[in-house]
């Protein structure tokens, strides 16, 4: 049995799907955030595999930028979750309905 690098892409697709389903079914804001992180990581795996398939390093550069953006996003997002938790005493996304029409 031989596997080709495309299997990495299939694994990335599976991880991305699991992350997306997690965003849809979980309601704790922090766990939702972890699911978004998983989706970003799956995209990174796909980028690194594409870089290998194409034989250039550009895919790895983009994955590096994705990492940086993910770090910034996590910092701001967790600060927002913390400030919501301080005012509402809850980290569930169902309780944050103040802007609901």
């Amino acid at each position, binding site marked *: 049995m031989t596997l080709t690098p495309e299997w990495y892409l299939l694994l990335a697709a599976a991880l991305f799907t699991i992350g997306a389903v997690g965003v849809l079914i979980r309601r704790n804001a922090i766990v939702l955030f972890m699911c978004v992180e998983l989706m970003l990581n799956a995209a990174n795996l796909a980028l690194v595999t594409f870089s290998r398939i194409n034989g250039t*390093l550009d895919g790895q550069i983009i994955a590096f930028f994705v990492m940086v953006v993910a770090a910034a996003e996590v910092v701001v997002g967790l600060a927002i979750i913390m400030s919501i938790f301080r005012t509402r005493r809850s980290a569930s996304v169902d309780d944050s309905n103040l802007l609901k029409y």
Partner: protein
Amino acid sequence: MTPAAVLAATPMSTGEMWVFIPLGILALVGALGMVAARNAVHSALFLVLTMLCLGVFYIVQSGPFLGVAQIIVYTGAIMMLFLFVLMLVGRDASDSLIETLRGQRVAAILLGVGFAGLVCVGLGRALAGTTAKGLAEANSAHGGNVQGLASLLFTRYVFAFEVTSALLITAAVGAMLLAHIERRKGERPTQPEQMRARFAPGNYPAPKAGPGVYATSDSVATAGLLPDGTLAARSIPEILPPRELTSSETAPKGTDR
């Protein structure tokens, strides 16, 4: 060719296959466990497992810099930040089991399965005839993976790199603004005000009585006795749930025989 370059040739070598299969299964288990775990801390630890597996995949796919950065940045910094916030948010972090929208969970899982099927079929058909070139040439052009990445980062992608630094600074300032609690001088009660509030009518100025400790019980949940024999409710901390022993718990255990 370096061993990493050999690994990156198409198709996967036997060694890479033996890395890919167990770690791929572990990564999937971690992802599923993260979505399924009821406790948010367990979710975070499952996600750490998945990210470690992905870091190994980057290294195997001749991207050692990205692999190490993944382990340091993601599992080392980001996930520990998650754990810190979970500890701050506390026990509330576990999810409730009630569904707000009926059938939402089933619909989401069906959608996910459909999406995965579409993506996998599309990928399989699109990539059927392609051959992976491997990164051996690109990595050796500048003397290594890190050098190759650096030469790209500081020539073709230098503007994106500069913008990234602006993004990082903005994020740091934003997080400081969001996490900062503004306290003006007038908001904190002064010592005379605290004193007056303490001796105001209706407030009990003395310290609370300690819980009763008797020969039969040394629990802090045991209320102290007032001089008239009644229980002092103030002697028990408010966070302790009221607890009555059931008859099976008060029955002799048979240890005295």
